[in-house]
């Protein structure tokens, strides 16, 4: 049971305070929170002398929840994440100004999302029916009609229906449903160039605008590659168990149908070969990047970044392709884009160590970024999407993309 939620800005200002139970949590708890050392403060769950604090940081906003009673910690953290999701969905992003400009809406949302410290409705679809988002259209309308109420007149009927994620009977002139496979690849390449870990975390994202009460089935050509899945509550469990078919009545709008994990990938699409040699106070750096196994589509937005160690006093790095930038916090980013056909991109240059140091003791880790459109690296393929009753003017769309998640190449 949560007792209070604070929204704090970067500078430590309390932007919003929502007391949830009879026990009033004093704001001084926030001061206590800011006074803690960084290493302690960054922990998601902290015990203060008076309360347990859960925190979640999203886009510079700290969501801080307090309680005095024992409760499942993940429930508190999940809830805060959900609050952040809903707010950023409503406000079109998350930052200090957006929250301050729309604090009434934030209050209204929190009021419906949690009562007496216990989470209530967090489904965005239902919330949207209760509280209208502050979009451009409603602003225009309010100017024109003079009626600025951002609350819908009717109560969401979905709250009472047996499919709580779906409003009753939405109507669309054109029926559209899109399925996106979005995959992220996490990989670690160790100092000897071996691939020690390579895993894909993927999501099936959907966007549906379908009239009435559609019943969908989605099947994969090769469901056996999936290691472990998590489903949106709308997915029926039995059909998946018996035939690996996703059968569901979708929520209206955008949602995450399932997430999955695929492990034991053999290869990364790119190779990165870093080399650093130290000699009496200077280090020579060379990093080569190229295609290891061609995924069949173009690899785009390739970037490589690393933290230049503190003991380096100056760095002189350049590349034969793309651009190299070094920020004041000593982060070096090399933007490569696509791999050219005529040469192998290479970053080279020297690092001058601080006086007194002979060689580099700290080895940087290179973080690699890339994006491949049109393919899911795990090999997962959608076979078909069927609707039980086909509405008029139906459009179905499928897309896939893979991007780098945490792709570390160690030196």
């Amino acid at each position, binding site marked *: 049971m949560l007792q209070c939620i604070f929204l704090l800005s970067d500078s430590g200002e309390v932007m919003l305070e929502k007391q949830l139970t009879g026990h009033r949590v004093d704001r001084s708890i926030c001061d206590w929170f800011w006074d803690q050392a960084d290493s302690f403060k960054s922990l998601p769950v902290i*015990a203060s002398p008076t309360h347990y604090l859960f925190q979640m940081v999203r886009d510079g906003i700290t969501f801080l929840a307090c309680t005095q009673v024992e409760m499942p910690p993940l429930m508190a953290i999940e809830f805060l994440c959900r609050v952040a999701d809903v707010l950023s969905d409503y406000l079109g992003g998350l930052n200090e100004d957006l929250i301050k400009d729309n604090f009434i809406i934030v209050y209204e949302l929190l009021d419906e999302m949690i009562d007496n410290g216990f*989470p209530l409705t967090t489904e965005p679809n239902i919330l949207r029916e209760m509280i209208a988002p502050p979009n451009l259209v409603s602003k225009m309308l309010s100017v024109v009609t003079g009626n600025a109420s951002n609350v819908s007149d009717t109560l969401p009927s979905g709250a009472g229906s047996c499919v709580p994620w779906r409003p009753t009977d939405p109507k669309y002139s054109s029926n559209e449903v899109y399925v996106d496979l979005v995959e992220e690849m996490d990989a670690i390449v160790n100092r000897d160039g071996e691939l020690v870990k390579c895993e894909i975390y993927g999501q099936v994202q959907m966007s549906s605008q379908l009239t009435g009460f559609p019943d969908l089935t989605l099947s994969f050509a090769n469901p056996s590659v999936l290691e472990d899945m998590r489903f949106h509550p709308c997915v029926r469990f039995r059909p998946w168990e018996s035939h690996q078919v996703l059968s569901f009545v979708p929520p209206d709008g955008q949602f995450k149908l399932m997430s999955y994990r695929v492990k034991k990938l053999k290869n990364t699409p790119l190779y990165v070969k870093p080399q650093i040699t130290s000699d009496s106070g200077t280090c020579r750096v060379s990093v080569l990047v190229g295609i290891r196994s061609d995924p069949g589509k173009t690899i785009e937005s390739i970037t490589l970044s690393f933290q230049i160690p503190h003991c380096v006093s100056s760095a002189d790095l350049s590349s034969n392709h793309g651009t190299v930038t070094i920020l004041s916090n000593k982060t070096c980013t090399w933007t490569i884009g696509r791999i050219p056909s005529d040469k192998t991109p290479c970053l080279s240059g020297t690092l001058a160590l601080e006086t007194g140091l002979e060689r580099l003791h700290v080895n940087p880790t290179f973080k690699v970024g890339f994006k491949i459109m049109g393919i899911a690296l795990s090999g997962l393929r959608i076979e078909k999407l069927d609707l039980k009753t086909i509405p008029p003017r139906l459009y179905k769309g499928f897309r896939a993309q893979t991007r780098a998640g945490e792709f570390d190449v160690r030196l």
Partner: protein
Amino acid sequence: MAPPAASARYPSPSQPSGKSEVTDLKSQLRQLAGSRAPGVDDSKRDLFKKVISYMTIGIDVSSVFGEMVMCSATSDIVLKKMCYLYVGNYAKGNPDLSLLTINFLQRDCKDEDPMIRGLALRSLCSLRVPNLVEYLLGPLGSGLKDNNSYVRTIAVTGVLKLYHISASTCIDAEFPATLKSLMLHDSDAQVVANCLAALQEIWSLEASHSEEACREKESLLSKPLIYYFLNRIKEFNEWAQCLILELAVKYVPSDSNDIFDIMNLLEDRLQHANGAVVLATVKVFLQLTLSMTDVHQQVYERIKSPLLTLVSSGSPEQSYAILSHLHLLVVRAPFIFASDYKHFYCQYNEPSYVKKLKLEMLTAIANESNTYEIVTELCEYAANVDIEIARESIRAVGKIALQQYDVNAIVDRLLQFLEMEKDYVTAETLVLVKDLLRKHPQWSHDCISVVGGISSKNIQEPKAKAALIWMLGEYAQDMSDAPYILENLIENWEEEHSAEVRLHLLTAAMKCFFKRAPETQKALGIALAAGIADFHQDVHDRALFYYRVLQHDVHVAERVVSPPQQAVSAFADTQSSEIKDRIFDEFNSLSVIYQKPSYMFTDKEHRGPFEFSDEIGNIPITPETSSDIVPAQQYEANDKDLLLSTDEKDDNKGLSSNNGSAYTAPYENSNISSQMQELAISGPATSATTTQSSFDFDDLLGLGLTAAPAPTPSPPLLKLNPRASLDPRAFQQKWRQLPISLTQEFSVNPQGIAALTVPQSLIKHMQSHSIHCIASGGQAPNFKFFFFAQKEAEPSDYLTECIINSSSAKAQIKVKADEQSTSQAFATVFETALSKFGMP
């Protein structure tokens, strides 16, 4: 609401200073209050917004309470909401003015629009003014009967709020009974869930003084009700599902079919998108199968994958919460996760709190098959930019080295660390090499040659310095310049700020002296003199003690300070298995995150809905009948209570925590304490004092101190009577009378755990070592035995309680002895006997 210090610290230019603006607002609101002009709602809205934004930044706007209430007559729902918000915030502080709001809130509770009815009811219940509760009853009663589920949902929570304002009013109005019937019959899942939450809370609080509430509370856990909820769990939203799962954890299944039914019903919850639901389900599975060892193990296999997916899918905060729980499971059943070690590899961008947890897990799951990969991975972190993580990973390598039998490759790695020439890497490694040498003295040759090359000037950290000095003293004969390094360090005595280092210097100088007297004599003299003059009490005492022992008899001194090296078989664990079990019982709670059971960090009143009565002590004990030496005896029921009594357990907690010195710093006192133990053992037994003195120490050290008698130590030799007998009744009496002289924990080898499937075999085995069993009991994974043994020659008994946890492969013993001084020796005998269990 006091203006917070935060806004004072970060003043924003737009923030009004307070007073004048509030007065301004007040007059504007008053103007609008009576107005019915068109567009008045818009101006009101702007004003309300201002009031609430002041409230939000922490300015006290309670003075406009009256005006706000006057303006509240409106049909605009946003205005109403803002007004409710304002009223809810200030009502508690202004009970008199709150009366003004009752009227309009009650009116709104009868509004046509269900949304307004609901919101008004919520605000009405959130006023929390004790003398207004009478106005709540009517609206709440009709709210519970409202035909709109939104209103009913709010009304149910309202009942709980009312209960907290005035319990008696709530009970007298018989709201709990109404809630119960709603819970069983309402068609809306959210209403049902809220009823459950409210009733749980109300009845738990009432249970202490009302038998009926107690019965009702029990009835929530009845089989039909549990199945009523579990069968329709999919209808509830994710948060309500968590609530139901929490309830299911407390349910006691009637038989194994019951258990499997529940698990079948809940299996798909493990694939829910919400991590909180998954974790709550995991808890149900784990608790249900505690008594079924093999199913319990299958549950671990089943939950592994969903948990690992959750770790990689969420934000760092979510990952952390799940990793904390995984950490608990990994430590309990490392072998199940041994093949998944790659999941615990650290990624560069992860926050360090996540990395730390992962390092601990990698340490826990290292076994013969994966050690090479894990250590290779850990070694890469040693060059990490994050110094704290680099340190942690070196410590992890060391811990793995201490766990393993084959440390060949790891020693090489550790020695490579020393060659990295980074001060913190060297410091951590030295500490580890020292621990390693204490356990595996056979590596001394390789290690010492590398350690000898390290200049003591480069080491600043006290712990590392102490470790180096310990090695200098211990291996003085192998390091040619040890006496001179020590001499150098002793000459800088004054600059050495750490008492720990000075203590080690004293001991090392002594040890070095026994091995290479001529070279060290001078340094020892300086050290003892400096030590005796030291302002630090421990240093002073130790110096004085050494001095007197030396003065008494050099050979005795050598036996005390520098006894033949004994390998340490296992380092004390920081947490007892009992505490770990306790945390496991509190799965899916804060306890797991803090790695402490809740009684260690929460006040009793805040402990929440968790109740833990089950302890190891409640394991049913059956008297041992198979033993042919101890005559079989029937226990009386009340006698059992003694063996199971929990109060002595609490006594032990202090003992065991003293005894199990923290893992990271075992060397701080282990040297001296082992010597002291030796003294303590021989102390009372042999009181003979030798009068011969071979040296004149006053001359040697140039100090005028008088001699004091010192005891002569003799190594303990404990022989047990193979044909000892003890009446169970006498055992119980003794157990009650004697204090606990020793609590110890050690690991049991895997063969022993395997052989433990037949607990009788352990009893037979121990008997062959002259340790007899008097009672045993328990189920996997917790077994409990009571043993006794007798000294060979004299009628001196040792009583032992031994708890073996087969899943963590740990044994915990509590020894009570007639002759307390020898209990350590007995524990050693016991451990040796136990370690041979299961060996062919």
